[in-house]
């Protein structure tokens, strides 16, 4: 899918970008064409899940804790100005579960895994290890790419749920220290503002983010040509490109979910509705918007 026949350094930046985009699209097509076909590398997929999951556990935990504590500290003052300090658990839960948790966790994982996958596969390419797999009839695309993509798609949502939970704990910790909040009140309010379906949907989008990080990093590593310098560049580009694509995908997913399923926290809208603070709209999304305006 080349737009020109020139060498890379002779192409215009736009032509180069179009080339890369076409190649990435072709790489994604190759993934979907082969993921259903044997050999199924279960053992290697589990090993990659361990690499992606277990070894990112501490990083994600610290990230979640920092998000929870900082969000609580920053929001307390603002809410207090409106006399709504008691709604801190609700606001924290909504913010963390719907947006900050999934996006922040995915960006942090993109930094760690994008660089790791890009550099690992890139160095395997330049040292001919991928060719060695190929000539030994070992299907490197299955062994290296499909395993990593599947592992990321499975593990990203799990790590996101964990990060969300740690963030809420961090938020509670801040509330306990600053306002001596009772844990029953905090968590009752926190969970009343979110429904299981919201959690599933907002966390589920991180499976798409996981796919983006893994497929972009694998593509850049798999197509490295040259030496160690190019491997480093592939690792760096894997982080940059996958982070940008995560943000872009998030905008698209949020827009689509607002169109299809409604606005901010249907459960929160229910919460306000029962308190007589808003009126129910014909659609959930409309009602949710009213809830926000009424607040």
């Amino acid at each position, binding site marked *: 899918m080349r737009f020109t*026949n020139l*060498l890379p350094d002779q192409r215009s930046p736009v032509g180069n970008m179009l080339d890369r985009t076409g190649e990435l699209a072709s790489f994604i097509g190759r993934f979907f064409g082969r993921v259903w076909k044997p050999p199924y590398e279960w053992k290697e997929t589990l090993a990659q899940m361990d690499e992606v999951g277990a070894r990112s556990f501490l990083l994600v935990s610290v990230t979640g804790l920092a998000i929870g504590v900082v969000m609580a500290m920053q929001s307390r003052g603002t809410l207090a100005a409106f006399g709504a300090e008691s709604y801190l658990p609700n606001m924290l839960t909504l913010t963390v579960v719907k947006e900050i948790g999934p996006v922040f966790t995915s960006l942090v994982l993109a930094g760690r895994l994008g660089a790791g996958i890009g550099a690992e596969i890139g160095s395997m390419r330049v040292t001919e290890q991928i060719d*060695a797999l190929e000539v030994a009839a070992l299907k490197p695309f299955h062994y290296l790419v499909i395993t990593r993509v599947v592992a990321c798609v499975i593990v990203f949502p799990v790590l996101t749920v964990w990060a969300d939970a740690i963030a809420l704990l961090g938020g509670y910790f801040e509330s306990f220290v600053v306002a001596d909040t009772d844990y029953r009140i905090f968590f009752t309010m926190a969970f009343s503002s979110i429904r299981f379906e919201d959690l599933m949907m907002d966390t589920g989008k991180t499976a798409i983010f996981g796919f983006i990080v893994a497929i972009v990093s694998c593509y850049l590593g798999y197509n490295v040509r040259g030496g160690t310098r190019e491997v480093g560049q592939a690792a760096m580009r894997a982080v940059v490109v996958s982070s940008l694509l995560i943000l872009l995908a998030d905008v698209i997913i949020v827009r689509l979910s607002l169109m299809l399923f409604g606005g901010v926290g249907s459960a929160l809208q229910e919460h306000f509705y029962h308190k007589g603070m808003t009126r129910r709209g014909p659609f959930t999304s409309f009602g949710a918007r009213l809830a926000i305006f009424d607040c």
Partner: protein
Amino acid sequence: MPEAETTEPERRDEAQETAPAAEPDEAPYAPPSSSKPEDDATAPARSTSGEVQPIGSGPPPEDTIIELRDLHKSFGDLDVLNGASLSVERGTSAVVMGGSGAGKSVLLKHVVKLLTPDAGEPWVKGQRVDEMTGEELDDLRLSIGYLFQGGALFDSMSVEENMNFFLKRHSALSKGERQDRIEETLSWVNLVDTAPKYPAELSGGQQKRIGLARAIILQPEILLYDEPTTGLDPVSVRTVSDLIVRLRDERGITSVAITHDLLCAEIITDRAHFIYEGEILESGTLKELKHSDHPTIRNFFGN
């Protein structure tokens, strides 16, 4: 495609039939008494004719295990192969020599379809490699071992895991049998002690020998060597070269090596080919090439 469908145990049996009396585990590595095939009175007579059939003439004769006909390959505007042709007889060692950038590695990669030609016909074991796909290609590849320039050992695995990785996926051997095969192969390259080590802990020469051991673990019919001695000291060059000769003499493995190392070429070659700007300029014995009238070849050999 009867040969491509040969199963792994059958290939082992074939290899054992072609091997002389000394079994690898009975004969730990020792350099051959004479490393030049032409000096070895006991070595079987080998054809060095190497006539390449024209394009479109169908499969090559049965004796010809590899035949590359008029291969052309370009990368963008860069023409790397410009009609390269060569043939390799079964059970012989061919060497492709030439300077850097002449197209040696690209030529070799066509034999296992790591690259496909823009034009021309690569034939291996009577089959068009560039037209093969799926299991047919896998079967052919399993009958070919490939020693990469840097060894291409999987650096996340130990030496033993590197070898076991191939065996587990491509043989029906039990765990114990695999272990025996690994030990036997490592003893053949005289590196049994390195089994638990990782590639980064090995010297360049050791990595090449382990790469060679991994390439023969599935007992292939053909071995391809990409610069097998580049970057090695003269002692290691001789060690690796002698192993290549032993593989040909003891196991009847056909080999194609690309190199610009004269010492290695002198030790292993039956028939040499000189490649320049993507074209085979001349083929013959190494002695014939050394006395070639072609100025580029004379310049390469320092005449």
